């Protein structure tokens, strides 16, 4: 094959010009966008700094000051705090009263306080995810365009789930704290309601992408709505549902810690108290326990999700 090189004609020049114009316009928009973003960022930084109790540059030299109280005099106190073993440094203050928190189960066998609190938080997360799952599944089939029993019902359920998702959990927790007394139950109701909305949205988006041939087959033999959903919809989507539910468990463990810190009980409350009072050993023990638990749950859930749906489990939001 031979290449023949000809002098650029007028048309080629025009094309090159057009291309140059287009790229320079695009570059202009990119620069403008990035510039706006940077301006917004700087303005936000200034605003956040201005509104804060301590200012960034004033506090920066002292940023590591809190490490001074965080580092315990005796590192063994971290283990003692974790397992509620009496500390030789105990002088009757709350900082070292480790054995007081023991939860005796059987004779002298006890669960250390922090483990009990961690179990509470994890149970809160699991139960609220369970509540979310149980309601989100039927809701998601009603809200899916291709499976809905009635378009009006679909709209109502969709809006309802949107409301549940956007409603601040903390308000529901506060409302129920006044009704069932502050504690895990109020937090579970709040997180559970939020989970219904969050899971429901993800679920119905999965439902809308199913293969409808199985549903048509069932429709042809006269199956009713429930049977079609049960035998045509559910088997296709269940692995994906479980994957998203596991992801929700991860999120809910974090959320129940936070709700716990504002009165929902569990480990969050203890952590907040411990940090605000500056108990080094206790704080480290709590952070260690919380970190390990979340890490284990994340890794386990990631492993299970990979088994359930493969790499797809990690493309969230994309």
């Amino acid at each position: 094959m031979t290449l023949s090189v000809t002098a650029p004609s007028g048309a080629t020049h025009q094309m090159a010009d057009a291309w140059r114009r287009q790229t320079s316009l695009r570059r202009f928009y990119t620069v403008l966008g990035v510039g706006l973003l940077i301006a917004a960022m700087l303005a936000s930084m200034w605003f956040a700094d201005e509104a804060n109790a301590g200012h960034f540059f004033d506090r920066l030299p002292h940023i590591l000051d809190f490490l001074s109280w965080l580092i315990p005099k005796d590192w063994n106190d971290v283990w003692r705090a974790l397992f509620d073993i009496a500390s030789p440094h105990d002088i009757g203050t709350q900082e070292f009263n480790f054995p007081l928190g023991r939860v005796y189960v059987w004779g002298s066998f006890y669960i250390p306080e922090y483990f009990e609190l961690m179990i509470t938080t994890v149970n809160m997360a699991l139960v609220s995810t369970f509540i979310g799952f149980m309601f989100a599944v039927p809701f998601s089939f009603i809200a899916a365009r291709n499976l809905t029993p009635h378009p009006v019902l679909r709209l109502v359920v969709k809006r309802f789930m949107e409301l549940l998702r956007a409603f601040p959990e903390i308000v529901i927790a506060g409302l129920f704290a006044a009704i069932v007394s502050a504690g895990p139950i109020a937090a579970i109701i709040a997180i559970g309601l939020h989970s219904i909305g969050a899971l429901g949205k993800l679920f119905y988006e999965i439902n809308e992408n199913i293969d409808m041939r199985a549903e048509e087959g069932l429709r042809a033999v006269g199956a009713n709505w429930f049977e079609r959903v049960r035998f045509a919809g559910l088997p296709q989507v269940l692995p994906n549902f479980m994957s998203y539910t596991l992801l929700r468990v991860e999120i809910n463990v974090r959320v129940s810690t936070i709700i716990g810190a504002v009165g929902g009980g569990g480990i969050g409350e203890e952590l907040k108290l411990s940090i605000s009072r500056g108990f080094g050993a206790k704080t480290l023990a709590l952070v260690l326990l919380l970190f390990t638990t979340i890490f284990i749950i994340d890794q386990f859930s990631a492993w299970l999700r990979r088994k359930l749906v493969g790499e797809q489990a990690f493309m969230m939001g994309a």
Partner: protein
Amino acid sequence: MATMTAEQMLSIEQRHPQIFRRPLYKRFTPLLLFAGILLYLVYVLWFFSLPQVLRESHWERLPLFLTQWVSYDLQPEFRLDQPEITPKYPRFSALGENPNPDWVIKNANGTYTILIDGPAKSVTFDKTQATIVANGQTVPVSLTGGKPVVSGPVPDWVTVHDDEIVAKMGFVGEVRVTVDRVKVRKRFLGWANFVFDTRSPFFGKPAGEVVSLIMSGPELKPGTSNLALAGDNIWNNAQWQHGDVWTKLLQTIVMAFLGTLLGGIVAFPLAFFAARNITPSGVLSQVLKRFFDFMRSVDMLIWALFFTRAFGPGPLAGSAAIFFTEIGTLGKTYSEALENIDDKPREGVLSTGANGLLVQRYGVMPEVIPVFISQTLYQWESNTRGATIIGAVGAGGIGLKLWEAMRTNSNWANVFYMVLLILMVVFIFDNISNFLRRRLSRTIHDYNRIQAEQG
């Protein structure tokens, strides 16, 4: 449809043994799973002592709280042991300093009539007796003995306590009568003094008058225009605290924005070193990945509490907490996106002899930038919601304000106001983020389509 013979059924069964004769453990897995969940639920029931909590809960408060979201009440009190009966309103009453509402009537004979819901639900009293009217019944109460006594039958909406008689009239209010005072609670639908509070010179004026005052009235406060005065009055409304609420709301938005953006900026270069297919060193990749896991697993709460201690309470602490968590989350998602790219463009750019940076710029970035932006937007959206909760532990924003309004259990209307604002913000930001992500996914889609067309 033809019916199958037993023979045909058997032959199907033999052809597909994996469906009809599954291993025992597989057949019983769902049952076991179900039993396990049931057992767990029983355990949780015991763990949280749910029956006891439910027994001790006050469900009757729920409708009360919910009505308080959209209504307010006025509670005039009438002392009967003074020489002359005069209504007394609690401080900060929604009616201002000298209320003279038309539903409190001083009759010619010295008695007072309070219309709680027109004359059908009302109370009329003097120092010797009170007459409560509601639900078509009239209940006379004698106040001359040492304690209030209902003369005649007591209907079920009236409760007789030792020294007090309480008449509940449903949503509209209630009357409490003792020997020396009558206390009325009258409930109104709506939000009282939402625009101007009782101290404002514009208070209690109809909208038309306010507008004409602002447009062309004489200066109510010398030296300031009426428009500025009205704006100032609204912004500093003592009851609703519009200024404070909106500032705090902006703080929450800023926290989410700043935290996510900075997290993205830091995670972006790190992700290239963490991605298995791009990193120059496998050890570095592992170290960075564990670092991302660490940042994510140290919960946002822990970061928030630490930074609140380091910077003092405020949005700076919240931004820093979200920033640190986001380094982990975005770092992880970015590096996973990088590991899933198509290697051909990279190889193409590499074959031209470009250096490392240029390979990333022209071989990798065009492919991943839309995915990165989409994931960042997704995180921004969820952080806008999360920043509310973080605020409640002292990390600034509307969360703390919300939590404090709720803790007092009295200001549910303010709570609802803030909830509506948060819902509005979440709704707007969801839509912006959805819109941008849709645009982006169209870009990705177009890119894929053009590639497919070119073969």
